[in-house]
């Protein structure tokens, strides 16, 4: 029952908010968003109590792998919702709104949450596909939120590339089904796993390749990542945080489900090789583009490509535990960074790295959070991503993937150097005069730049609501880096055991 409520409530609220249009009723919608987020978080929490059923029927079964992703999504969504409460208040005061446009934000967010939830809790590959495609459709309007040319371009690319990619994934799923032709298997992961020795490896191989390419497109694995930097940089920051922290995970989960089947059928080496190759290519592409990047939101987007590469690599080298831990760490850290980036965009009204400096002096709290997030995402101790990246390295080394691990280290260090230069250029330096203050002094009316939020109000206000969420994320990232609680370890071990390979 809880399972139905989990995706039913957001969907229902989404439909309700669809019928509450109009700028003046924005508050109502925002409140419904909060209610949806809180209810979802509470229900997810309820699932932790022993004795609560994790399966409803064949189509809705929450295994520990799905539960992990569900928890991340729910948690992230709650705090992003809190953040967006403050964020859009600021943004709405600043930009004249186009008619009949903005009200899609809340319903789409809620639909997205609902589709994400469904993704995590179905073991049926067909339904999984439906849910993942639904996340694409729900987020496309979110990316187009600002309704200017670049946002349109980003949204169109996102929608088309991901839809095509996901169509390929569907073909891959059918191929996997073809592998079991004759044995009467329905599309349940569990029945595939049970039936694994009878699966035709030829079909399974092609199926996995197609699924990897298809969901890999959506997950942002290079060279299929082209939509990702555009979408992440043009979407409003809370949306970017969700895209990076939750949406990419959904596609990753899709790949993991098929990996489960492959590894049960004895194709773990084959699948692992492919994952390693995709992972390393993603790391390479991310390293190159991060070095040359002039736009900090795109920089963060490429960092997502990097981390998706790490996840893929981690699974490929057989480090299930490390990769799943890294999913948590990356989601939280990237959520933190995008949320902080939202504040920076609102303040400086630019996405160029060169035009932002002295963050620490202009907005001390934001600056510190940004520094923490930056250090964490680059994988420096004592933050959580360091632990998981190190675990992946260790496991890969133990399993004998020396070349892959050496390249992994090389790319990580290149990224560390170039990214820290860019980020600390922004954080350090003298206090900079802010664009709106400058314009006001010159007596010029602030123009609505094609950027997120050109604030008309005085810039430096207290970012109360907006700082709370990043702060929570930062705290957790730090705590997890210092101490991994045993229940979490046990939970992750159980989830990674589903992937079929012993640690």
């Amino acid at each position: 029952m809880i399972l139905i409520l989990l995706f039913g409530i957001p969907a229902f609220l989404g439909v309700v908010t669809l019928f509450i249009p109009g700028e003046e009723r924005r508050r109502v919608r925002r409140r419904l968003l909060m209610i949806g987020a809180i209810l979802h978080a509470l229900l997810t929490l309820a699932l932790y109590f022993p004795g609560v059923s994790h399966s409803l029927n064949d189509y809705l079964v929450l295994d520990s792998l799905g539960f992990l992703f569900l928890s991340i999504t729910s948690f992230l969504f709650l705090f992003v919702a809190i953040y967006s409460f403050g964020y859009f208040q600021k943004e709405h005061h600043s930009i004249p709104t186009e008619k009949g446009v903005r009200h899609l934000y809340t319903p789409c967010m809620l639909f997205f949450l609902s589709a994400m939830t469904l993704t995590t809790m179905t073991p049926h590959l067909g339904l999984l596909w439906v849910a993942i495609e639904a996340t694409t459709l729900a987020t496309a309007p979110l990316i187009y939120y600002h309704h200017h040319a670049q946002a349109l371009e980003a949204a169109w690319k996102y929608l088309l590339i991901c839809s095509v990619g996901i169509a390929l994934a569907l073909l891959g799923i059918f191929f996997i089904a073809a592998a079991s032709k004759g044995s009467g298997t329905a599309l349940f992961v569990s029945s595939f796993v049970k039936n694994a020795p009878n699966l035709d490896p030829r079909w399974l191989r092609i199926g996995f390749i197609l699924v990897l390419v298809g969901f890999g497109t959506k997950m942002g694995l290079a060279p299929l990542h082209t939509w990702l930097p555009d979408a992440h940089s043009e979407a409003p920051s809370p949306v970017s945080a969700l895209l990076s922290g939750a949406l990419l995970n959904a596609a990753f989960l899709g790949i993991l489900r098929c990996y489960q089947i492959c590894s049960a059928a004895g194709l773990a080496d084959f699948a692992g090789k492919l994952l390693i190759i995709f992972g390393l290519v993603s790391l390479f592409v991310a390293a190159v583009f991060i070095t040359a990047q002039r736009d900090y939101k795109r920089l963060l987007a490429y960092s997502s490509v990097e981390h998706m590469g790490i996840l893929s690599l981690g699974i490929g080298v057989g480090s299930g535990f490390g990769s799943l831990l890294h999913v948590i760490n990356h989601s939280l850290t990237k959520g933190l960074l995008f949320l902080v980036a939202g504040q920076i965009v609102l303040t400086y009204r630019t996405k160029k790295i060169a035009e932002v400096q002295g963050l620490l002096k202009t907005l001390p709290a934001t600056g510190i959070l940004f520094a923490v997030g930056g250090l964490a995402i680059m994988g420096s101790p004592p933050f959580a991503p360091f632990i998981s990246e190190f675990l992946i390295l260790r496991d890969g080394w133990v399993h004998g993937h020396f070349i892959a691990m050496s390249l992994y280290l090389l790319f990580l260090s290149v990224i560390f150097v170039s990214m820290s230069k860019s980020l600390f250029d922004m954080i350090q330096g003298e206090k900079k005069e802010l664009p709106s203050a400058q314009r006001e002094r010159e007596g010029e009316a602030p123009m609505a730049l094609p950027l997120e939020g050109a604030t008309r109000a005085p810039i430096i206000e207290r970012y109360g609501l907006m700082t709370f969420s990043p702060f929570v994320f930062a705290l957790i990232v730090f705590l997890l880096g210092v101490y991994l609680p045993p229940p979490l370890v046990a939970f992750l071990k159980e989830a990674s055991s589903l992937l079929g390979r012993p640690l």
Partner: protein
Amino acid sequence: MDWLIVGIILTSFVMLGASRLASCIRMVALQGALLSILPLLAKPSFWDFHGLLLFVGSFTIKALAIPFFLFRSLKEARIKQEVEPVVSLHMTLIGGGAVLVLAFSSFRFFALPTAPFPSLIVPAALATVLIGFLLLISRTKAITQVVGFLVLENGVFLFGMTLLSDFPLTVEMGVLLDLLVGVFVMGIMVYHINRTFDHIDTTVLSKLRDIE
């Protein structure tokens, strides 16, 4: 049934060769219709409630609703009729032929018991997927890209049809619904692209790049 499958491939060829958007959309509607009729002819067992519901659903969505949306955005955006291919239509047609040879020559590899469907369906599905790809990459207009996506999806559907004798209704309906909403959203975006850029040529969508 062979006739239907041959018809499905021929419609995708007409799309490859057509120089008008309207005929592309009409063909995609026809293809959807053929596709939704196919299971009715193939399986006597399909004549139950589940099968008929599925037929009605896929026919309404693939052959009626989606073409309707596409025509509407074509009309609202007042898009010019020409297809505007990247490479000449000759080349895409030859490419279509090559793709066809590829799909059919790999049939030994893809040998699969397809009963009750004719075995032609597997290469036909692969060819349709590949032609969809060809349409996607060889056309610049946003709306033709949507058409390409639909052809691709139709190919996937054709393939799926052979494999799953008992595709659960909810899932199949979910797939169709996703498709419908997807095309709906794409149609809206086509309208916006046209309004923002005065045409729907996706070559204008190249402002976003990494290094300025």
